[in-house]
């Protein structure tokens, strides 16, 4: 499944494959032509992926097949043991988490979880948590503190679910509580924005000592579509909104909202999950190493200072 801006690439790829097939079956030597085409493909890919617009990156962040939190957990940790439930109302499948080893060290990990197909997406409410999901996340934060394990949060949600039941059970309250709970962790906390970082529903598990972001992920106070609907009264102006919101990894790094960009393979994380996981692993390893020397109170103060400094104004 190719996104709009990927079509020239996939067309060229198809053509090369066709010629290769012809050359192989006919015995005709097309190596000259093929090498020209391959070089052109490389250039085309470079041109396309190095200069993606913000809106194109939003589409990559949502691309079917993009590694979900569970994929990443299984890709970068070992012996993942999933834990369930908020001990109060239900188990929200839009949030997953548990215990695992990262490079041999036990950690606590949590993430928004989208489905990998329609059926799973319905089960997981398209990665939009109810209050119970955040309560599960808080329970895992408690565990991390209790056992002095690093806490890793994987962010990938269009936003917290905006529905009647969610409001009834305190969606705003639980997001605030989760922000506060995570802020209070006395262990290293790292948040990684994997795909979509939709507003408060993302931030609820985003209060890390360091916040990392995948090259093609987005993180914003509002989705481009909703922003467009409000400002231009047209959801179709989402591309414009994406530009205005400066929601790309590079933008956010410049604003200090994120601390590091994790590179993706050409064409996006889903093109080569193995490379994607290796890149995440490398960045997470470095980040955890940086935080390792800090004691419990220093970690809290480090997090305080990190977020304390965000915002721009005139005295």
């Amino acid at each position, binding site marked *: 499944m190719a996104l709009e801006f990927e079509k020239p690439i996939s067309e060229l790829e198809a053509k090369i494959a066709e010629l290769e097939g012809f050359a192989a079956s006919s015995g005709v030597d097309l190596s000259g032509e093929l090498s020209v085409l391959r070089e052109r493909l490389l250039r085309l890919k470079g041109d396309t992926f190095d200069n993606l617009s913000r809106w194109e990156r939003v589409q990559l962040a949502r691309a079917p097949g993009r590694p979900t939190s569970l994929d990443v957990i299984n890709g970068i940790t070992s012996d993942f043991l999933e834990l369930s439930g908020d001990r109060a109302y239900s188990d929200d499948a839009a949030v997953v988490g548990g215990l695992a080893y990262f490079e041999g060290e036990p950690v606590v990990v949590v993430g928004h979880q989208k489905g990998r197909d329609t059926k799973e997406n319905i089960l997981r409410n398209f990665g939009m948590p109810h209050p119970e999901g955040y309560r599960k996340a808080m329970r895992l934060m408690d565990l991390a503190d209790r056992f002095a394990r690093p806490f890793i949060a994987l962010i990938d949600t269009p936003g917290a679910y905006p529905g009647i039941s969610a409001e009834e059970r305190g969606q*705003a*309250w639980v997001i*605030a509580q989760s922000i506060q709970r995570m*802020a209070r962790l006395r262990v290293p906390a790292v948040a990684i924005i994997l795909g979509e970082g939709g507003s*408060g529903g993302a931030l609820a598990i985003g209060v890390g000592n360091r916040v990392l972001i995948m090259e093609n992920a987005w993180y914003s106070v509002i989705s481009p579509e909703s922003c467009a609907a409000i400002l*231009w009264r047209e959801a179709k102006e989402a591309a414009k909104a994406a530009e205005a919101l400066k929601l790309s990894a590079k933008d956010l790094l410049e604003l200090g909202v994120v601390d590091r960009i994790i590179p993706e393979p050409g064409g996006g994380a889903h093109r080569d999950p193995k490379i994607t996981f290796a890149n995440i692993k490398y960045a997470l390893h470095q980040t955890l190493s940086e935080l390792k020397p800090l004691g419990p109170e220093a970690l809290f103060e480090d997090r305080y200072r990190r*977020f304390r400094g965000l915002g721009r104004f005139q005295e």
Partner: protein
Amino acid sequence: MALERLFRRRRAQGEARDVPELWVKCPKCDAQIYKKDLEANWYVCPKCGHHMRLSADKRVELLSDTGSFQQTTGLKPIDPLNFSDTEPYPKRLERYQREAKRPDAIVGGRCTIGSVPSVLLVMDYAFAGGSMGSVVGEELTRGIESAANENRGVVIVSVSGGARMQEAALSLMQMAKTTLALDRLWVKRLPYISILTDPTTGGVTASFAAIADVILAEPEALIGFAGPRVIKQTIRQDLPEGFQRSEFLLKHGMVDKVVDRRQLKDTVSDVLKLLYPRD
């Protein structure tokens, strides 16, 4: 967040501030009220008790002990993203500043409330629907931090459509910043009271406004995470009567009390006295 549109719509309905006439019509019971009477009654309809919107300055007057308020807010917003939609953000800011007669959507300072040393922070709906950008976040944070340093209680009056779109991710970060700041009060056992007024939604509800020691709400205020319009769009059905109103939130365990504005000062004073450290 998504509530600026709502804000535009609601102003006409709820706000009587700029009406030059001597008489005001209650939007709930249609009673004609003499404007001076309405002012004397803190913009609560004397006939039906409907709470109309109250300006930020009036709120300061309502809650702080007479003569005790010393304003500390005054930061000015900038345009960190070069944000432009149908109009550049700086232009919007100028208009908001003219309308609200202050640099951003908040006023606050030191005061006493029922003789308890306090920091009072009041959001201003007249400025961009009380939306929270860098200035609101910073003023709240400074106010909270100064309360912690000076052993004061904190009272925050919220009224907001949520985080400010034009500062995008920086607005979002104010949710974390203000929430973190509240931890400074914790260490010193200083009380924090959150007062929710009509409307409080989005990133404001989902951060500092929801994690107070005591949460009070004015009657029939709209309070929630997502705006009613967004929810309606999502679920494609009508919302139940009274949904997301103060009384609904009380029933669902989210607020401690729904308090008539005319008793608000007394209640806030009582809570502060009960929670403030004894020497």
